[in-house]
């Protein structure tokens, strides 16, 4: 098998599984459906690992077109693959997490009537995500971008009978539209100014266009590179849920937990990060864009972390944690530490998928109760889930030597060294974020696994405030005599398999990925202008020493303080949070956080309401009267009228037909002989020529 065949096989294997399970799932049954999809993803993962190994052992990067779909005016719309170390790493992460989630799903969804549909969707997602990361041009990138968005939409609304789920998927879809609008405009600018959609050609041309300016409104000129990069980044803000387009991600938790792990934590939401890293040759050329990226990331990293503190739904806590971590990655991008962002992307994929799957396991153990106030003391009943959750949480808060520590500390180092104007704020945000992260992570951990066994008090029925699901789909909560139980092996196996990389991947990978030349010729950094990477490399070349050194740095003590605070608040003095709550309620902070900074309020009652109002006006006046009444029905009436006249020409009499032919022939003869012989004057030919061939 040559490499091209392998590259083709990697996305096509999951697609095949998705098609079989989706189209013929009704016929082949549950078992065959999960076998074929898991088989497809397993093949894909095995080959991805092979490709990564090939790259690590010095294999050539591949950049080639597989198929030209269409070609318009010299611009080709290709299906093509660019496989280098960045792609190979993403492929491995995507297929590995996807494989884990596939296996986990067997246990998590086994009661669900939409079993085959679910497997089909997640395999389709794997295909789309692979197409996205393997693209060598903007068209395929956009295809993958939209395809993962589509699958995300389908999966958030997987339980389509729940009004909350359909609301959430509509919200995700609409918010992503805003981002994609910017993304598409960015691609349009690339096409317009670079004249190509191929990565290699665009990147090669980027330095020439560094100082090009464009006029969007008369009197104002902007740097082309800044506008293009910011527009592309707007797309990333939608997909990677950056402030202020983050609002869809917490709601996306309406979907089944496996996809929260796969799509809304580990892979799809990181597509924006990946995209910016991929576009590093362009972003490097614009200080403005990088600064924008940095500030947006910093806002997301800190303020979304705050929201995690007050959540009571176990999945939402993890969701806000995801938002905050995505903010960290974005900060790294803004600081020109692209490889650090990608590194954090990778470690985060493992430990966040682990946390989500563990949360799912807890939810199963609790019989689909998601409220952490009803849990407690679960460590006795769910040993594996407990241990793996602890590993995930420790990795998340950046415990030295665990994977999250290396990536997060590198981000902090990079921000410290950054010279961009927004770096000061960003540094504050990421440091404060360390404390917040540790606090909410261990708040959840203590509430779930330690302390009193509160499900006894809650009894059968419970308040499920914001997240009331309809009761006929799943019965919620434990009965009076139930006990939580450990999940089956198909659920715990992925937890264990994900826990291993959460522990060690950072230690193993930091050297080559950050200090080595793993990303050489893939990610471009202008070291003179953006020195952030220098600082990171200095530490990263010795992972062991970096881990030891951490105990003497601020981030470690901030994280420790966060854990300690959580311990005090929720284990030692459970009355304390309520007291603090009352204080914060008085000054309105509590309300602000509960309302998520009023962002949803603003969007729904502001933009959406204004949009609906405008829509109503346009509908009543524009659509109903002008378009439907005048244009559609009017033109249809005209067309119908003309048609009724034209059809009368078809009399059925043969002599009418012959007559029409002869008249037609006569007209032709008269006109053309006349033109050629000059009966209508010498200008006639020219005049007809101008009429017929008028150029636009």
């Amino acid at each position: 098998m040559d490499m091209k065949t392998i590259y083709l096989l990697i996305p096509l294997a999951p697609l095949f599984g998705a098609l079989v399970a989706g189209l013929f799932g009704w016929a082949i049954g549950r078992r065959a459906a999960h076998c074929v999809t898991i088989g497809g993803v397993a093949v894909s993962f095995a080959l991805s690992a092979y490709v990564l190994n090939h790259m690590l052992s010095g294999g050539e990067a591949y950049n080639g077109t597989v198929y030209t779909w269409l070609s318009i005016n010299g611009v080709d719309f290709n299906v093509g693959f660019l496989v280098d170390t960045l792609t190979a790493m993403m492929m491995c992460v995507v297929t590995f997490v996807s494989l884990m989630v596939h296996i986990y799903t067997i246990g998590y969804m086994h009661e669900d009537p939409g079993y085959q549909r679910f497997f089909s969707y997640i395999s389709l997602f794997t295909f789309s995500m692979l197409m996205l990361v393997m693209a060598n041009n903007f068209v395929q990138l956009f295809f993958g971008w939209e395809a993962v968005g589509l699958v995300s939409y389908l999966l958030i609304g997987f339980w389509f009978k729940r009004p909350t789920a359909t609301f959430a998927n509509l919200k995700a879809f609409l918010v992503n539209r805003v981002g994609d609008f910017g993304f598409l405009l960015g691609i349009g600018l690339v096409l317009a100014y670079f004249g190509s959609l191929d990565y290699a050609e665009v990147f090669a041309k980027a330095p020439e266009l560094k100082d090009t300016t464009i006029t969007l409104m008369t009197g104002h000129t902007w740097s082309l590179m800044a506008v293009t990069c910011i527009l592309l980044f707007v797309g990333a803000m939608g997909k990677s849920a950056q402030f202020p387009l983050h609002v869809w991600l917490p709601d996306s938790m309406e979907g089944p937990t496996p996809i929260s792990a796969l799509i809304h934590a580990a892979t799809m939401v990181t597509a924006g990060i990946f995209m910016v890293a991929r576009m590093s040759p362009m972003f490097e050329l614009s200080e403005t864009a990088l600064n924008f990226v940095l500030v947006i990331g910093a806002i997301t990293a800190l303020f979304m972390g705050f929201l995690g503190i007050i959540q009571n739904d176990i999945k939402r806590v993890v969701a806000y944690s995801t938002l905050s971590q995505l903010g960290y990655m974005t900060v790294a991008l803004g600081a020109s530490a692209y490889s650090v962002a990608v590194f954090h992307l990778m470690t985060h994929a493992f430990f966040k998928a682990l946390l989500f799957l563990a949360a799912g396991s807890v939810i199963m153990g609790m019989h689909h109760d998601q409220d952490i106030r009803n849990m407690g003391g679960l460590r006795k009943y769910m040993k594996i889930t407990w241990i793996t959750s602890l590993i995930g949480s420790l990795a998340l808060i950046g415990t030295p030597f665990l994977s999250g520590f290396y990536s997060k500390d590198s981000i902090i180092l990079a921000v410290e060294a950054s010279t961009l104007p927004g770096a000061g704020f960003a540094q504050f945000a990421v440091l404060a974020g360390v404390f917040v992260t540790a606090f909410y992570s261990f708040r959840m951990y203590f509430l779930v696994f330690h302390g009193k066994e509160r499900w006894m008090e809650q009894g059968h029925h419970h308040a499920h405030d914001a997240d009331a699901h309809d009761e006929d789909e799943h019965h919620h909560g434990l009965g009076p005599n139930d006990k939580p139980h450990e999940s089956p092996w198909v659920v715990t196996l992925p937890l264990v398999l994900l826990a291993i990389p959460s522990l060690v991947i950072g230690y193993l990978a930091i050297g080559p990925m950050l200090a080595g030349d793993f990303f050489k010729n893939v990610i471009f950094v202008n070291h003179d202008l953006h020195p952030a990477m220098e600082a990171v490399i200095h530490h990263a070349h010795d992972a062991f020493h970096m881990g030891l050194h951490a105990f003497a740095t601020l981030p470690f003590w901030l994280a420790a303080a966060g854990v300690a605070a959580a311990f005090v608040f929720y284990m030692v003095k459970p009355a304390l949070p309520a007291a603090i709550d009352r204080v914060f309620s008085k000054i309105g902070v509590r309300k602000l956080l509960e309302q998520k900074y009023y962002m949803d309020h603003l969007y729904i009652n502001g933009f959406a309401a204004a949009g609906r109002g405008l829509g109503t006006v346009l509908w009543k006046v524009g659509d109903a009267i002008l378009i439907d009444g005048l244009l559609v029905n009017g033109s249809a009436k005209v067309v119908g009228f003309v048609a009724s006249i034209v059809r009368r020409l078809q009399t059925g009499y043969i002599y009418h037909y012959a007559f029409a032919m002869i008249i037609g022939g006569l007209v032709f003869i008269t006109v053309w002989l006349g033109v050629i012989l000059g009966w209508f004057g010498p200008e006639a030919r020219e005049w007809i020529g101008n009429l017929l061939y008028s150029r636009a």
Partner: protein
Amino acid sequence: MTWTSLNAGIALPEIFLLCATCALLLIDLFVSDARRGVTHALALVTLAITGVLLWCGYSPAPELAFSAMFVADPIATLAKGGMVLGVALVLIYGRSYAADRGIYKGELYSLTLFSLSGMMVMASAVNLLTLYVGLELLSLSLYALVALQRDSVNATESAMKYFVLGALASGMLLYGMSMIYGATGSLNVYEIGHRLLVGEGNRLLAVFGLVFIVTGIAFKLGAVPFHMWVPDVYHGAPTVITQLIGSAPKLAAFAFIIRLLAQALEGFAPDWRGMLIVLAVLSLAIGNLSAIAQSNIKRMFAYSTISHMGFLLLGILVANPVGYSASFFYAFTYVLTAAAGFGLVMLLARNGFEADQLDDYKGLARKHPWFGFMMLMVMFSMAGIPVFVGFFAKLAVLKAVVNLGMVWLAVFAVMMSLIGAFYYLRVVKLMYFDEPVNDITLSGGLGAKIVLSLNCLALLVMGLFPNYLLSMLNDAVVFSLPL
């Protein structure tokens, strides 16, 4: 003149087809009505072997035979391949339909194969007389086929109209050819082209001939105002014959146009371009507008054909290889689309029920979701909705027109397609959203159903991968045109 200088080998597919058809004609005399399947099978085998011979004989460079009366070039060979396929589909889809209507006879097969011979000769002829002979062989076979159902008033009436008007058009064409001969002193297409390009010959006479030739071509294509026969013949003829008329001969007409206009009358391109613009604009407008007013699906298809031929002309009038190959692609894909459309009509027809009213399609998708979906694909492709091949055919033609600078014409064509989308989508609406009025049963054997499904799926697959065919046809045009 000797056997070797005849170079008859390159006409092997035609020679084989003719011999096999004669043999079939005789064999069928000894086959009882009950065992007509033998004739059917032999006809299909004949087509298969003809196809294989075409495949084996493909040569990228034009080769002449029969004293430069006959050429085998890629345009001809590919067009013939399409014709063989189109005719095979007619025979496969039409079998049970013909059996139900008493026209499941040996003549159905022999005449169909003779018409195919005529088409193939048209595609390969480079002499005005050979062109004419091919055309007449096709036309006469079709006249007889339309009248095959002798006790049907509609069929005989339409055969009569077809015959009389066809004779008139043939007369005009022949008259035009004689003028060209008079003007240039040659019957050979290449020779005429050369002499007119260098400015030899009587210009007035040649223009006279040109007008008549365009008239004849317009009739054969069914372009407005020479289109009047199309709806009546499509409607009156048995559907199996309608499918024959509506599919493969369009490719023959394309080749015919290439020989006459692109090769023989190349020097008059600005003049015939003007005429084709008039024809195309009228065809697009009248075809689409009239189709809306139809309640009979065969008549609707007839008017839709007229508008499609308008598109075909748009590509031709660009008068460069890009335009020609766009038209070639259009004709090629149209053959498959039309075959699928009529195949589906026949699938729904049964003894005593033609399934030719639009209302007969109400609720089809609910009763037979698979074939409802197939019909949907055909309609989408005809309407030119992306992903289906019809879109790329239209796109290729419009691209060529825009490149020429005639934006207004492209815009007009798009507007007319928009109107056209209405009546295609109306069928989809009837199938998917209306309650069935008749009970819908499917006729036809499993084989026909499978081939029909593949045919429809091909519209999707070719839309996903249009480039293979498009570049193949483009190469064919580029290799064939100069000699």
